[in-house]
């Protein structure tokens, strides 16, 4: 009779909702040790509350699920993978025929090609200028003896 009165006081509901004070929680745990049938009553109350909550769920955005699962993956050190997951990959490449896909090595090849072309261009200009200078020097040397030859008979 006393136990029934205790149950009807709403102490279990108060505990389940988290509203019971520390003293009330301690008392309830003590009573549960004395009367194990109280455990069944606690479970009844919890199941009623569960049914009530499941009758009116509010689905959270998918973004929350992603954030929660992301945390699981971090905790697993990126080792977590679900072999049975059925992923769908979507190719987002445009199909207009104006795009091609090439291996990443081509990027390095084009960078090297670009740099080499600049080097060769520089060398070509450099040697061209050098060639021009040597040509000018050569023509200058050719004209010098002629002048000397032209001036020498008059001196004589």
């Amino acid at each position, binding site marked *: 009779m006393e136990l029934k009165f205790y149950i*009807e*006081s*709403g*102490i*279990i*509901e*108060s*505990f*389940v*909702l*988290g*509203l019971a*004070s520390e003293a009330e*929680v301690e008392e*309830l*745990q003590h009573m*549960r040790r004395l009367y194990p049938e109280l*455990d069944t009553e*606690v*479970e009844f*109350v*919890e*199941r*009623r*509350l*569960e*049914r*009530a*909550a*499941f*009758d*009116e*769920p*509010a*689905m*959270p*955005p998918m*973004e*929350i*699920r992603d*954030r*929660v*699962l992301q*945390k*699981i*993956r971090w*905790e*697993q050190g990126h080792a*977590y993978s*679900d072999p*049975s997951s059925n992923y769908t990959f979507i190719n987002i490449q445009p199909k207009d025929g104006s795009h091609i896909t090439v291996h990443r090595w081509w990027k390095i090849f084009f960078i090297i090609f670009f740099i080499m072309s600049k080097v060769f261009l520089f060398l070509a200009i450099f040697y061209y200028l050098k060639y021009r200078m040597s040509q000018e020097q050569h023509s200058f040397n050719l004209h010098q003896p002629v002048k000397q030859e032209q001036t020498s008979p008059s001196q004589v």
Partner: protein
Amino acid sequence: MRRDLAHISEQVLIERLVIGDPAAKELLYDRYAGALYAVVLQLVPVKERADDVMVRVFTWVFQHIGTFHTSGYRTLFAWLMRKTRELAIREALPETALTGSALMKLEEGVLQRFYLMLPADQQQVFRLSYFKGLSITTIARLLALPEEQVNDILGDAMKSFRQFLKDTWN
């Protein structure tokens, strides 16, 4: 969610969570997120904050699932709901401290409906206790009432809640 785990019992789910099974964690989320989000929305009126609470709840649960058996709770949902409310109140207090009006209007729910059925004095105490997470001592000080009286009013509200649950979900 992995299909082979979809129908496992609560006990098996807890055992797999204790050993850190990632698929069990995923299942826990899929099974309880909807019911818990409804609880959070009644306590945290700001959507972004409510979303953060959900992430925090599940992060905490994954780390502390081992304490379930010593918590005094018999079902996983009640244990989750208790922690969800605790974290949600921590998030809600700075914004809505002691006003409560915005909170009450935002989301319908089981506890909201129950709250509206209560007499005025029980409504006041239940709101401050459940939705605001205030202690009996603080509520007594706020309402300028003796603690015993506040305790009795909350006790009456809990009796009504017992009846409310039994009448609808027995």
